[in-house]
């Protein structure tokens, strides 16, 4: 059955990308690529190319080679403390896609067709890939490939509700209605979007965070500084692919309001809902970029939206 084949393909992506599985392709790479070049699959090479483009376009705000910083914060969180600046600097020295070296250019598309043709090494011990900011979106896109090939044109596929792709329409409404949860009161919606042939991903630290020394630290880390990003309350991104939406929702969270708005101005295929923390009370003022007014519905009295483009 096509639908179950599509969902099962997600397990394959998980087995390939997970850093929590010792046998995954990414774990194998992280364990060995600093010592010697490692052959990578065509699919991983393709994903790395997509990552590189997003890394460049966001000036480093999206970076999958951030495992050293994630491991540092994860360990400190378990120990109930925050890392000191020297620990962050040491982890940051092993962070960044520029620490990967390709034996042949990853831009050569013919290499993707030749198994074993592409080999990657890490320039330093301690460098590591972590696709947590794009993996779900990538899995959704690969599953959608299967569904599209089988001619299933009206469906919605989500991964953990925070990333999804809406294909075609639902019940003749011109798209799929998707509620966005109010980041302050997550049992309530604050916006409804009507999505058609579009991906949506949401990032925020309202659920995953920890406290230390009376301060709250979110789980989204800025790969450029090694510290948690904290400018925005919530970011939702609409994009042609779920991988882009997933990666950009994290990148925009890190970049903050103005840089994200600028990005949307220069990338008209990308839409965003950027919600800063309320300046007073519980009234939210999300900024909507490149979202047509007939595709968004405000469903809460506690929202005063501002709109750019669309």
């Amino acid at each position: 059955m096509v639908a179950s084949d599509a969902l099962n393909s997600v397990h394959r992506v998980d087995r390939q990308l997970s850093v929590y599985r010792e046998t995954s392709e990414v774990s194998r790479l992280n364990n060995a690529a600093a010592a010697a070049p490692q052959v990578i699959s065509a699919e991983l090479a393709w994903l790395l190319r997509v990552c590189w483009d997003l890394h460049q376009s966001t000036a480093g705000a999206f970076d999958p080679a951030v495992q050293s910083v994630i491991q540092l914060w994860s360990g400190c969180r378990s120990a109930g403390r925050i890392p000191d600046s020297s620990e962050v600097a040491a982890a940051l020295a092993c962070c960044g896609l520029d620490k990967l070296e390709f034996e042949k250019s990853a831009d050569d598309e013919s290499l993707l067709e030749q198994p074993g043709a592409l080999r990657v090494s890490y320039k330093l011990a301690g460098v590591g890939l972590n696709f947590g900011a794009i993996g779900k979106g990538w899995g959704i896109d690969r599953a959608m490939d299967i569904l599209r090939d089988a001619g299933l044109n009206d469906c919605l596929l989500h991964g953990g509700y925070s990333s999804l792709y809406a294909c075609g329409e639902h019940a003749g409404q011109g798209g799929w209605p998707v509620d966005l949860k109010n980041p302050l009161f997550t049992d309530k919606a604050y916006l409804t979007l009507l999505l058609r042939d579009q991906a949506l991903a949401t990032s925020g630290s309202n659920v995953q965070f920890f406290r230390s020394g009376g301060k709250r630290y979110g789980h989204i880390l800025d790969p450029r500084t090694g510290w948690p990003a904290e400018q925005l309350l919530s970011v939702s991104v609409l994009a042609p692919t779920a991988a882009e939406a997933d990666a950009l929702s994290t990148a925009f969270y890190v970049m903050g309001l103005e840089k994200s708005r600028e990005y949307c101005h220069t990338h008209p295929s990308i839409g965003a809902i950027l919600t800063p923390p309320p300046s007073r009370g519980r009234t939210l003022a999300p900024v909507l970029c490149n979202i047509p007014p007939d595709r968004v519905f405000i469903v809460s009295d506690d929202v005063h939206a501002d709109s750019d483009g669309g």
Partner: protein
Amino acid sequence: MTDASRRQFLTGEAVLKVGRELGERAADRISDAVSGLGRPRAFDTLRLETRAMACTWGLCSTLERTNG
């Protein structure tokens, strides 16, 4: 009207207050109905789910609309 005073009752103030409240409630209902017009909503879907990457994944497709 049980908490209205005799003076409020005799002057009609209590009746006016009740009438005003009823009118406001009716106006709110009309306003809510109008503002909800055009908002898309979810109809019945067929769903398949699995667990991967430490979360639930779901595929929804539309069941044929039979009413509404």
